[in-house]
């Protein structure tokens, strides 16, 4: 009997993803933080049009039928869309130390060699920052709790590549959160002063 948790296999724009996540409920499993990966292979150059539905099916077959895993990463993000792979409400498979407690996000690209600041890489970064901001806000996570896969002490690897600088991603997420939700709570200086 297969224990495969299934995939969602749908792609979203950043705003669609935000709406989608607001409809989810984390009753049986709730992640404590987010782990950022890059696919390395395929690189951006190897996927000039980003991911397709067929790519998601191929990945599902690989993880389920060859690797015999019960799940894969939660998101695959390219320069166009955010693909939901493993349902965000169940644990995934991506980082051995953190599979039970963290969401796994795979960014299309090999950021050991490809740019994360310009061109398609910058768009992947923008989509990723938007996705992390959405999940951070909805789940009440601390943006600074985000980890990159290479921080997993159990294994040694270059994932994501060196062009992905964790602190810059966190700062971008924090900036976007302020942009999105900055008006939710009045800043202290706007409050009436008490005598």
């Amino acid at each position: 009997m297969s224990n495969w948790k299934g995939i969602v296999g749908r792609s979203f724009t950043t705003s669609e993803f935000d709406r989608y996540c607001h409809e989810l409920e984390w009753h049986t499993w709730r992640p404590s933080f987010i782990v950022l990966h890059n696919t390395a292979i395929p690189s951006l150059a190897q996927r000039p049009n980003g991911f397709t539905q067929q790519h998601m099916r191929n990945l599902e077959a690989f993880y389920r039928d060859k690797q015999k895993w019960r799940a894969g990463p939660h998101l695959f993000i390219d320069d166009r869309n955010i693909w939901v792979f493993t349902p965000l409400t169940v644990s995934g498979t991506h980082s051995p130390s953190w599979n039970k407690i963290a969401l796994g996000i795979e960014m299309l690209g090999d950021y050991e060699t490809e740019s994360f600041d310009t061109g398609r890489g910058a768009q992947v970064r923008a989509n990723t920052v938007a996705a992390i901001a959405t999940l951070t806000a909805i789940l009440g996570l601390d943006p600074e709790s985000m980890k990159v896969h290479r921080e997993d002490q159990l294994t040694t690897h270059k994932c994501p590549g060196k062009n992905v600088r964790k602190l810059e991603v966190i700062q971008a997420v924090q900036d976007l959160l302020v942009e999105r939700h900055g008006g939710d709570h009045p800043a202290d200086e706007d409050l009436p002063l008490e005598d």
Partner: protein
Amino acid sequence: MSNRFLLVFGVLLVAHGCAAPDAERAPPAQAADSVQPQAAIAQWSREALEVQPRMDALRSAIPADLGYTPGTTQWVAVDSTSLIGIDTVTADTPGALLSALAMSLGWADVLGDAAWEQTTRVWMQDDVQAVGVVLQWGFQDDSVAGRDFRVHMRLDGVWRAHTVEQRFHCARRVTDGECA
């Protein structure tokens, strides 16, 4: 059924008292990143000691359209901070020492959760020197498929480890000596 409850296979093949006459000039271990089929290498040889046959299966299982080129990193010394307490671990045989190290250093902790299996082997270099490996496979990791430890052991009244190295089997490819 949860992976936690799946059977974990541990194979302990202790090669004792059968060192080859030219054991001091043992053949080199397999080259890293080799793509030659490894499974056919005979047991009870220095060459076979470090073979991870699962790499062959991984290569054949990967769909061509994924573009993965699995490889193995070079052996590197394990950081000393990960070996605290190793001096206190001794045993009457190299096989027992290897198993004790796997337990005391927490290598076996990944089984049933992060990794599927662990295979241990020992090659007797001579009467007082042995090399052991702990081969772990099936990491639930998008880039690392397996991790191996190689332990050089010496008999000094009791068996002790004096050098510990590790390497990784990379599902996607090796980049600058690490898994991509």
